[in-house]
């Protein structure tokens, strides 16, 4: 579609409707996808009569297939359209990644095969480790964590292990984190047995302030001797680069703490900035964000970590090492300070193939352009929308821009109504009510893979929504949205208060 057609069509999409009952409601009894004769002389354990006894629906293969395919048409994915979910980096997943991941030599191997028969796969993992280390300036790399939050856990367990091995864990109990951090950050710190000390960013324009950081660092010990480390997302969830991060990292290091960086927003920095250069000791990646592997149902996710020289000895095993011309897994015996294994086998191998394919097809220069274009696209949206919506931070922003419903609240239209109206217009909404540091936030991350025409169509839709909110009966119109989706507004409060978790006929 050219730009003109795209603009003409903006806001005209209407959903496909399938009213789809549950499998149990379909079930007529007596059908079965696969059935085979009972073995002679044995009690029947499979087949239609047995299925009936345990309450499974009885359906044939085409019935089951159609059920799931029809339901899949209710999905919205990056393959459908623009998906501006902030802090999630919903970029296009290149098909080349899928092609390489399906090569039989990668797709049909087993984790228990002898290492001598999977040298190519080990080499690929070794190369991926090298790319991640190069991009972060952090020499140690462990690929095994299964997703972002698992990578966080691996990172924080590495910090914990370091303090344990150094004999400091009894006094270093505190993890510092700004109030703009991802909710998983404090949760991970608590999972690792630390106490969380939150640093307010409300007085410092959404960024971490040096004075506020010092106050938190020295609050209960003048030397910061009870602080184990800090968890910071950079750029942060307000879409802002932490300008004082180097200074803050120096203060933390002087006090004996380690710096964990949440790599969720690495798309803004990849190829441009090496986090190791601004003081990061350990960082996780979301291969399914920055490195274009599938999210969610199309996943699985993958959350490798990279560590500084100092922390590398503590991080989880296994990693792949190279000896002469061959590759093998490093063992726990070789690295006695390791915290151990976090997961069976070596991680999400199919995702490693996709991520390395992406890196090699982009090249170092291409990855640099990823960050530049991602930031450019977010600023393009911010500049076009800031007259219609309240932009709490002037900008320029990094890879995502933050708006609030402050203007629309005058007409009793809130962020939720704006998000629901976007569904009516065929878009997946942005991230709403996050970050928590401001009211009614809308966090929009376009990524570098959207064209100018796509962004313009989205802006036109957002402007139309703002105009409707301010127009006659705007409140009534937007409160009724969405109109065309398979379901309108769900009663989220009732669902949370009285969840119905099992099917009753």
């Amino acid at each position: 579609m050219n730009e003109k057609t795209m603009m003409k069509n903006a806001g005209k999409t209407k959903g496909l409707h399938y009213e789809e009952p549950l499998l149990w409601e379909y079930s007529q009894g007596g059908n079965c996808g696969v059935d085979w004769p009972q073995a002679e002389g044995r009690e029947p354990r499979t087949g239609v009569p047995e299925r009936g006894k345990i309450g499974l629906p009885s359906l044939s293969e085409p019935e089951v297939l159609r059920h799931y395919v029809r339901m899949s048409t209710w999905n919205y994915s990056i393959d459908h359209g623009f998906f501006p979910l902030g802090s999630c980096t919903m970029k296009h997943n290149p098909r080349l990644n899928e092609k390489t991941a399906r090569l039989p030599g990668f797709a049909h191997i087993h984790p228990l095969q002898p290492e001598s028969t999977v040298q190519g796969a080990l080499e690929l993992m070794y190369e991926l480790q090298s790319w991640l280390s190069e991009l972060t300036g952090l020499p140690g790399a462990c690929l095994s964590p299964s997703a972002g939050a698992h990578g966080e856990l691996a990172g924080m367990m590495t910090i914990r292990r370091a303090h344990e091995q150094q004999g400091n864990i009894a006094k270093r109990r505190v993890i510092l984190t700004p109030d703009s951090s991802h909710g998983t950050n404090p949760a991970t710190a608590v999972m690792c047995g630390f106490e969380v000390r939150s640093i307010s960013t409300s007085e410092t324009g959404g960024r971490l302030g040096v004075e506020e950081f010092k106050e938190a660092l020295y609050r209960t010990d003048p030397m910061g001797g009870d602080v184990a480390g800090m968890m910071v997302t950079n750029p942060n969830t307000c879409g802002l680069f932490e300008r004082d991060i180097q200074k803050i990292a120096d203060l933390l290091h002087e006090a004996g703490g380690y710096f964990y960086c949440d790599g969720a927003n690495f798309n803004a920095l990849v190829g441009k900035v090496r986090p190791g250069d601004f003081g990061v000791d350990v960082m996780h990646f979301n291969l399914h964000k920055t490195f274009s592997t599938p999210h969610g149902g199309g996943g699985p996710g993958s959350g490798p970590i990279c560590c500084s020289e100092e922390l590398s000895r503590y991080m989880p095993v296994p990693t792949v090492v190279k000896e002469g011309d061959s590759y093998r897994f490093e063992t726990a015996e070789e690295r006695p300070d390791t915290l151990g294994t976090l997961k069976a086998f070596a991680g999400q191998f199919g995702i490693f193939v996709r991520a390395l394919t992406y890196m090699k097809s982009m090249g170092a220069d291409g990855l640099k352009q990823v960050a530049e274009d991602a930031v450019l696209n977010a600023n393009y949206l911010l500049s076009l929308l800031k007259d219609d919506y309240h932009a709490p931070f002037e900008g320029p922003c990094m890879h995502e821009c933050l708006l609030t419903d402050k203007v629309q609240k005058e007409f009793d239209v809130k962020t939720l109504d704006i998000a629901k109206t976007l569904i009516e217009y065929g878009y997946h909404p942005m991230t709403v009510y996050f970050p928590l540091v401001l009211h009614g936030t809308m966090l929009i991350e376009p990524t570098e893979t959207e064209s100018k025409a796509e962004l313009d169509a989205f802006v036109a839709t957002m402007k139309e929504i703002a105009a409707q909110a301010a127009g006659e009966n705007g409140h009534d119109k937007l409160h009724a949205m969405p109109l065309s989706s398979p379901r309108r507004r769900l009663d989220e409060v009732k669902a949370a208060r009285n969840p119905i978790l099992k099917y009753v006929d």
Partner: protein
Amino acid sequence: MAEFRYTKDHECIYVEGDVAYVGISEHAQDALGDLVYIELPEVGKRVEKGGDVAVVESVKTAAEVYAPVDGEIVAVNEEMADELEFVSAPVNENGWIVKIKVADPSALNELMDEAEYAEYLKEVD
């Protein structure tokens, strides 16, 4: 007309003798939306000013309720856990979440009154 006091974290407090009734302000309720869950502390727990006393969870988010002063939890509103709409009632009626026996009543003077809180809300918004 009952007199209420407020914290910067949007707790709403009603004082009766040396007991502070602690709930959340209308502004906080508006920001949170309808509550879906509330987590209450144990009666008898000692609390410090600024420490967590309860967690309120809505569809949008979960938020901590902080102790406005040092003291001891002397009662928790079990009925609110079942009737979450109670949170919007005045704090001196059904809207209290916990009652704290205040260690030092003079600490209550540091809290904002109605007018100061209204002024504060204008600043933060």
